[in-house]
């Protein structure tokens, strides 16, 4: 909405339309003023919307409600360029390269997201040690994201697993180029430490591919390095920002500890919508905290009907087998599909299938609409 005159442009305008019938600084050309007069008629007069929505009963502030369209008077000279590019496109291209790279190397990459203090690193250490007992030959590596310090990477390295720490400085999330660089470091370090990989690298690890290049990474690799391995990417502790950044992972795993409150999935819906699995951690503390597990799962499924849920205590080991089972399942099947492993997951599995049906129906409806559209 415009702070100058209160006008609000209709939302689906494809052609840029000036929005100020009365311009305070007299900078507009006559052509533009004519166009303004024409479009002003279609502008709807909306309520002021630049501030947060205020709940009249509680006084709570909702910054998500307003449209906040503030207009600044522009100049008259115009050359229009239609761009229509995704703002996250550059990240998503690198993420796609990471994904192809991981697939070519037989790497199952998981992006672990949570708020600070949910127990991600403790869970990872317990997982690495348990996996070593069950699958001594399975390589497990970790990329650690934190604003500062290498404490977490050191904790992981103490288990014997290779780890690379990414410090984001003031950054609140990892992005795909960071993960590409860290993965290259992991690779380099494992080579330097004498791990006898038998593959010949006949491809560019530098990821300088420009957009528009159809990437055929998996086929370009001529090496034999497809024994499965596991890469945990522990994102910066933050339940908001990491939801938007694809790192090239197979799945996001959201970790929520029972000391945090059962309503987090609804408070931070984007993260739980983006995750395939929610791990409820620290369940050994359930007797000491007010945390309604059933309600938490219900709220998570409001924002993501297909989300799978596991209940774990990294410190006592309770439920760890279910998590290991989930990982083994993912390692054994390289193509994403729904899961049906063990009792208690039938509901999630059915939900996932129902959501898949809904996705396909939505796609079909969209295609039908496109086909039916004139011109």
């Amino acid at each position, binding site marked *: 909405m415009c702070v100058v005159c209160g006008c609000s*442009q209709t939302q689906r305008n494809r052609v840029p339309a000036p929005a100020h019938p009365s311009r305070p600084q007299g900078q507009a050309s006559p052509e533009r003023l004519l166009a303004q007069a024409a479009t002003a008629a279609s502008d709807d007069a909306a309520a002021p919307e630049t501030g947060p929505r205020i709940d009249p009963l509680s006084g709570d502030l909702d910054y998500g409600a*307003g*449209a*906040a369209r503030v207009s600044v008077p522009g100049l008259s000279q115009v050359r229009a*360029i239609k761009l229509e*590019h995704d703002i996250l496109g550059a990240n998503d291209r690198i993420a796609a390269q990471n994904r192809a790279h991981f697939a070519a190397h037989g790497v199952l990459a998981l992006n672990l997201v949570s708020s600070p203090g949910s127990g991600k690193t403790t869970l990872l250490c317990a997982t690495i040690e348990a996996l070593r007992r069950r699958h001594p030959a399975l390589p497990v590596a970790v990329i650690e994201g934190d604003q500062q310090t290498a404490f977490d990477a050191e904790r992981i390295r103490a288990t014997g697993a290779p780890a690379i720490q990414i410090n984001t400085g003031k950054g609140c999330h990892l992005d795909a180029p960071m993960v590409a660089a860290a993965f290259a470091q992991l690779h380099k370090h494992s080579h330097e430490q004498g791990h006898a990989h038998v593959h010949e690298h006949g491809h560019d690890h530098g990821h300088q591919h420009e957009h528009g290049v159809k990437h055929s990474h998996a086929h370009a690799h001529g090496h034999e390095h497809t024994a499965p391995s596991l890469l945990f990417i522990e994102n910066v502790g933050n339940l908001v*920002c990491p939801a*938007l950044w694809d790192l090239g992972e197979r799945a996001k795993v959201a970790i929520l500890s029972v000391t945090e409150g059962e309503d987090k999935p609804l408070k931070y819906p984007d993260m739980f919508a983006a995750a395939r699995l929610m791990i409820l951690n620290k369940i050994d503390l359930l007797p000491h905290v007010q945390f309604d597990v059933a309600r938490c799962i219900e709220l998570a499924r409001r924002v993501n009907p297909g989300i799978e849920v596991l209940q774990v205590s990294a410190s006592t080991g309770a439920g760890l087998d279910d998590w290991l089972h989930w990982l083994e399942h993912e390692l054994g099947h390289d193509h994403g599909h729904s899961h049906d492993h063990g009792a208690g997951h039938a509901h999630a599995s059915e939900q996932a299938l129902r959501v898949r049906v809904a996705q396909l129906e*939505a796609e079909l409806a969209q295609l039908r609409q496109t086909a039916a559209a004139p011109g």
Partner: protein
Amino acid sequence: MHEASLAGGVLQLVDDCAQREGFARVLELRLEVGQLAGVDVAALRFALDCIAPGTRLEGARIELVETPGQAWCLGCSTRVPIAQRGDPCPACSSYLLEPTGGMELRVLDLQVSDD
């Protein structure tokens, strides 16, 4: 807070475009931000205002076009509007919804000047 990174992404797209098209500055920029894109519109605008000085975006009129959230409801087998994730279907109150629209996060178009 990620809106600052997104603003950086917008500036990168503008600079890349300037390389191709050879313009000096942006007069007007239109962004499309879906209601379900996970972006705070006011924070994005603030971030853009912060990075604009000294760049091709300095002084540009920036319009954020919000596209409404839409989801496919499994209960109704139809497309319904939703304002945010976690909202029920307005028709049948089911939570079995699959978002189908309102996730956009794009630079739509810009008006530029050569001088």
